[in-house]
Each structure stands twice: as structure tokens, then as C-alpha cells.
């Protein structure tokens, strides 16, 4: 097996009395779809927040492509090529789709307009945004300058996923990307995930939807009580056993036995 592209060792994160991540390890290998499953409150979102710079872990280390990294903001992680779609979407409702897609990495006009007057290159950003949405065959958004708040839930989810897919050069993380979506909308997101994988980019997918997880994942990281309980191969385990593991009804030893 090759080396992991992204990994973490011994991560700890406490919120007041709650230990959301409790000496947790984590590994993502190149080109794979890794699913992370676990009960509500198991600490899945906290884990990926710690890995993607959205929160600073209290202890532990994160490695990207073999080098130790210490992201202090989501921007650091993004500059390193890790794109995340957070559970709570992270879009600015009053701003346009293009504004949102380029938030934090805006393009400036060439020449002194850009370097001196720091003027944004709106035309270029709009074109890029439209191209990406089209390229991903995602949906027919009529106006790229529409405020995000005027989009439906599914469309918003689409914008967030498209942003990640467009800019994620090394790793893409999706935290419950289909939780509030209808059947059709969910399907589109799953197709998109496979599309991204086919471009060779590894994906972390957090989901409560077992059928989706078993359909897509190459490996499943089972998270319980703030820790990685075990990692399983969806081809070797039944859905029932995966659920039993994550809820504590079964231990990894039982499963191995």
C-alpha cells in the first residue's frame, strides 16, 4: 500500500467538558473514497474540522503528503489543496454565487488596476464559476450573480460542492452533503463525487446514509466516542455489522472473529 496522502495521529479536541475528539487517528490514501460513519455526536465533524484547519486541535499531529502541517485557518488548508464542504454550508447568503465560489481567493485584474487599485476581475471570476458549474454538469443556474439566499437548498449544496470540486487539488472533504436533500438532489451529488474520484482526487465522505456509503466508499472509517474504532472494507462487512460497530452493539474483535 502507498503512503497516506492525509493522516492524523492522536488528535484531541475538547469543548468545555466535552471531549469531541479523543486521541483519534485518521488516514486517507490517494485516489480513494473514504467514508466516515458514526453516531450523532461521535465527533465526525469535529475531526474533519481539525484536519481542515477550521478548529485548532488541542493535541496531536496532522500530516499531508508525508509532511507535518499545522493549519490555523481553513484558508491554510485550502492553500494546501484541501477543500471542505462543511455540514453547515459556509456560504454567505447575501453574496452572489461567483462571490461565494471565490471567497478568500479572489482574482484581481491584471496590470496596475489589480496591483495598485486591487480591483477584482469580476468578469474572469464569473466566467470561471459558470464554466465550473457547467463542466460539472451540475445544474442550470440562470444567473451567476444571483444571491445565494435566492437558491433552493439543493442548489446551495450544489454550489458548495462545485466550489470544493473546482478548487480541491489534493483532498476533498464532504460532511453530510446530502442530509437535507431530496432523492433527486442526493443522486446528483453522488454522481459528482464519483466524477471527482475519477479525476484522481481522494474524497472523505461523512454520511448517515448507509446505502450511499456502501455504494461509494472504498474504505469505511468507523468513528465512535471521539475515536477511530476501526476501518473496514465495505466488500468484507455487512451494513448491519457496520451499524452494530458504530453504535457499540458489536466490537471490532467480534467483527474480526
Amino acid at each position, binding site marked *: 500500500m502507498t503512503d497516506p496522502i492525509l493522516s492524523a495521529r492522536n488528535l484531541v479536541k475538547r469543548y468545555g467538558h466535552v471531549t469531541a475528539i479523543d486521541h483519534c487517528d485518521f488516514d486517507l490514501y490517494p485516489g480513494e473514497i473514504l467514508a466516515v460513519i458514526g453516531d450523532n455526536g461521535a465527533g465526525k465533524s469535529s475531526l474533519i474540522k481539525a484536519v481542515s484547519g477550521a478548529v485548532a486541535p488541542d493535541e496531536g499531529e496532522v500530516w499531508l503528503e508525508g509532511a507535518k502541517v499545522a493549519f490555523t485557518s481553513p484558508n491554510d488548508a485550502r492553500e494546501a489543496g484541501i477543500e471542505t464542504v462543511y455540514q453547515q454550508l459556509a456560504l454567505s447568503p447575501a453574496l452572489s454565487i461567483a462571490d461565494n465560489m471565490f471567497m478568500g481567493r479572489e482574482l484581481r485584474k491584471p496590470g496596475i488596476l489589480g496591483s495598485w487599485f486591487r480591483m477584482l476581475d469580476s468578469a474572469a471570476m464569473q466566467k470561471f464559476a459558470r464554466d465550473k458549474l457547467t463542466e460539472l454538469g451540475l445544474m442550470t443556474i440562470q444567473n451567476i450573480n444571483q444571491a445565494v439566499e435566492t437558491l433552493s437548498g439543493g442548489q446551495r449544496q450544489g454550489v458548495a460542492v462545485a466550489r470544493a470540486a473546482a478548487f480541491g487539488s489534493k483532498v476533498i472533504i464532504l460532511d453530510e452533503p446530502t442530509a437535507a436533500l431530496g432523492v433527486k438532489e442526493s443522486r446528483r451529488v453522488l454522481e459528482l463525487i464519483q466524477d471527482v474520484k475519477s479525476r484522481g482526487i481522494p474524497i472523505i465522505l461523512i454520511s448517515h446514509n448507509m446505502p450511499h456509503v456502501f455504494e461509494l466508499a472504498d474504505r469505511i472509517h468507523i468513528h465512535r466516542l471521539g475515536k477511530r474504532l476501526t476501518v473496514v472494507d465495505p466488500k468484507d462487512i455487512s451494513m448491519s455489522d457496520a*451499524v452494530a460497530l458504530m453504535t457499540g452493539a458489536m466490537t471490532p474483535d467480534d467483527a474480526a472473529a
Partner: protein
Amino acid sequence: MPESYESSASRDQSVAEFDSQGRTLGHRLQHALHVTPSLVPLMVLIAAVVVFGLLLGQRFLSPFALTLILQQVQIVGIVALAQSLVILTAGIDLSVGAVMVLSSVVMGQFTFRYGLPPGIAVMSGLLCGALCGLVSGVLVAIVKLPPFIVTLGMWQVVLAGNFLYSRNETIRSQDIEAAAPLLQFFGTRVEIGGAIFTFGVLFMLILAVVLAYALRFTAWGRHVYAVGDDPEAAALSGVNVRGTLISVYVLAGTICAFAGWTLIGRIGSVSPTSGQLANIESITAVVIGGISLFGGRGSILGTLFGALIVGVFTLGLRLAGADPQWTNLLIGILIIAAVAVDQWIRRATV
């Protein structure tokens, strides 16, 4: 059963729990304060009294001086209680001072300009306060405008109305004493063992207790908290949000009118220029008392302590001979510190 895999989830019924980290003293303190938010201002208050007592001795610890603080705090204290109600609903009332003064002017002018019996005049003043509250309440609850703006506008309107209606005329204390002593009712003094209380002070204390009771032990009180916490959730879970909001603004207006009546008792006369600082001072008391400006959290007794803290600092520093500007500076720092502590307590997750 298409989802048979799910059944394995039901096998284990025990409740999963994270390891609870050993609790430090700091954590335990944080927890205690989290549960009883008015403890912080109470402790600050006691500490302030002790420190000034040690510093100034008898001059500060005399019954006269201590009850003097109560007298100096009474107006702001009463207004701050009204302010607390509004802030608990996640609002803010910038018009409290103006409503208070207009109400006192109405009480005075109805007696002296129109010759109405003082009882009727007082009732009219209270009604005036309630009406001002009603207007704000309707604008906030029904038209759904932000309270900051509504009461900013009301402040200007009511204050201007006050100056226009009163023609800037003061009604002299001597005239009131002679013709309508009822207006000065709250100025009546009672001596209890060397300590001097006015009816106004007693009113403030009783009002605080009554409101604390109503907020804690009646359905209305629970609804006030729920509305301040999350108005949409409150509406969906069956609270009459509009009614609750309007009742709060009307009650706050009425309390301000009572403050106006108390004001006559305190300063003797009816003066349309009074109360200009009541806004900012009442908000300061509420904030120092630990009620969250975001609504839904805090105890109204904290407000009383907040007002008293400001009173203790003001009198203490004055008796210690500090320049009044140093008092202002200190109160400014106190405001920021109070909220910093508050945030720290909030961070406690249980």
C-alpha cells in the same frame, strides 16, 4: 423490511458517554456561575462594598451613606428593570429615559395646567408610559422592525414631544408640595434604624422581587425567556410571541412611567430636562448585571446588583476624592470586564 441493517442499531440500549475530564476548581466555579448568573454581580457588589468600607471606614459604612446609594440608584434601578425585560426578549429600549420624563411631565402638567385631581393626573402619566410602550411594542411585534431602530425613533419623537408639550417649563417643588403632594409620594421617607429609605427605594426593591417572581414562576415569564431565546421556535411551540412582546413593551413603558413618578419624588420638581442619561445608565446596569444583550439569558436581580455596583463605585470613588472622570473611566472598564466574565461563564457547556 428493506432496511434490516438498521435493526442492529437497536441491540444496544445503553447510553454512550464520553470520558468526563477531571474538573478543576475553575471549572466548578464556572459551572456554579453558569447556573446562577446573578452570582457574579452580587459578588462584585459585595467586594466593592468591602473594599470601599476598608478604604473609607465609617464615612462609607454608615447607614446614611449606604442607604444614600439606594436613593441615588433608585431611578436608574427602576428604569433598568424595565430595560431588562426588553433586553430579555433580545430587544433594547433607547426610549426609556424619554418615556420616563414625558410621563412625569404629563403628571405635572395635567395637575397644574388643566387643574385635574392629582390622582387622575398620575393615572394619565402611567397611561402615557403604557401607550408609548404600546407603540414600540406594536412596531416591534407586528410590523417586525428592529427594536434598536424603533426605540431610537421613539426616543427622538417622545423627547421632542416632551419639550414641545412642556414648553420647557419646570414645575417648582414648592408648588407641587402645596397643591399636589401625591406627585411627590415616592419621595416620602421612612427611617428604619438610622437608615433612611424613601418609598421610591422600597418600590424599586419590591418591583425587582415581583418581576423576578413573574419571570421565574409564571408562564408569562417562561414565555419572555423563550421569545428572547429564539422567537421562531417559541412561536412554533405555541407561545403567543406578538402578545408576549407587546406585553413586555407595555409593561416596560409603564415601569418607566412609575420611574417618572419616582423622579418627581426624588427631585421634588417636574423638570422636562431630566433623565437624559437614563438610557445609557440603564443599559450599563443591565450589562453589568449579566443579562445577555442577545436575549433569553440572565436574571433580573442581576440588574439590581448592576445598578447598585455603579452606585457604590460612584459614591465610593467620590468619597475617596477621585475626579468624576476617573469614575467614568472605571465604569467603562467595568462594563467591558463584566461582559468578558460573562462570555467566560457562557463557555461552560453544562
